[in-house]
């Protein structure tokens, strides 16, 4: 598996929004989120655990998501994340901000 260093700083700034989007289709646990980011990016962006957790903790602190422990599976238990109404609003706002930034950057770059 090759790790592409594709403008990772640019992508990192949007991890919160990526996670909020993923949680809209249902509660997910950490590894599920990182796997989906990898596959949905066509295997071009592999998020580091540290990056993901700093985002998850921030989102939780801001009330965008809540977490709960699931039942134990083979080996260990998983902590699941759920989007809140605040998170839904933040997602819409971030998405709009991005669309606007994209239009501006396309003119400038």
């Amino acid at each position, binding site marked *: *598996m090759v790790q592409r260093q594709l403008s990772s700083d640019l992508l990192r700034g949007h991890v919160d929004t990526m996670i909020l989007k993923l949680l809209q289709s249902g509660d997910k646990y950490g590894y599920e989120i990182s796997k989906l980011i990898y596959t949905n990016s066509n295997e071009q962006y592999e998020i*580091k655990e*540290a990056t993901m*957790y*700093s985002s998850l903790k921030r989102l939780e602190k801001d009330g965008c998501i809540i*977490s709960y422990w699931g039942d134990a599976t083979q080996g260990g238990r*998983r902590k699941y994340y759920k989007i809140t109404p605040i998170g839904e609003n933040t997602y819409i706002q971030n998405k709009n901000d991005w669309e606007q930034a994209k239009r501006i950057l396309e003119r400038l770059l």
Partner: protein
Amino acid sequence: MIEKLNAHVHSIFAPYKSAKTATELEEELLQNLLEKYDDHRRNGASEQEAFKLTVDSIGEVSELMESLNLQYNVLEQAISMDYSRHRLLDSDFRSVSVHDGKFNSCDLSRSDFSHSDLTNSTFKNSNLDHCIFENANLTSTLFKNANLKGVTFKNSIYNKTHFKSCNLSGLIFDGETFKQTIFEGSSLRKASFRDATLINVQFRMSDLKKIDFTGASMDKLTYNFLHGAKVDLSGVTLI
């Protein structure tokens, strides 16, 4: 190899093991990494390759630790009263007004704060064993790493009160009204909120096992927070 992974993750968290949030994050991270390791193995990686790929995927450890220690963002305001680092056992603070008071790192065991106005005050790393807060105004008061064992809370105001990393196990908040109160990284095991009213209350990263909300009224936001944490809300009225 799984033991090796376990040991690696454990060594990252070893300096932080006193914090409950660190222990939980360690458990969570290890579970992710074990599944990731298995997937790498299933995809044909050797044990060594899979181990390396898995450990590399952790990224910056410092970033991980910062996520545990999110800055407390309420401004430390100008001090009007500073009682920090004092032994004030059995003190009588009844009916006093100590806006912005600092009661940090002090022993206040069995002190009585009834009818006092503690708006914007902080109680960090303090011992409040068996203190009394009756008819107290706790607006925007911060309790952080405070020992609240056996504390009596009654008829108090909890607007924007913040309980962070506190042990509130078994405490009784029956019939109290909470507005924008935050319980963060705290244990509320077996705490009682019978017939309490909760509006915009947040329970972040807290232990809510066996918490009692019988007869409580709460708004939808609070309800959703608790529902996600699988708290028994059968006796709750939505307002």
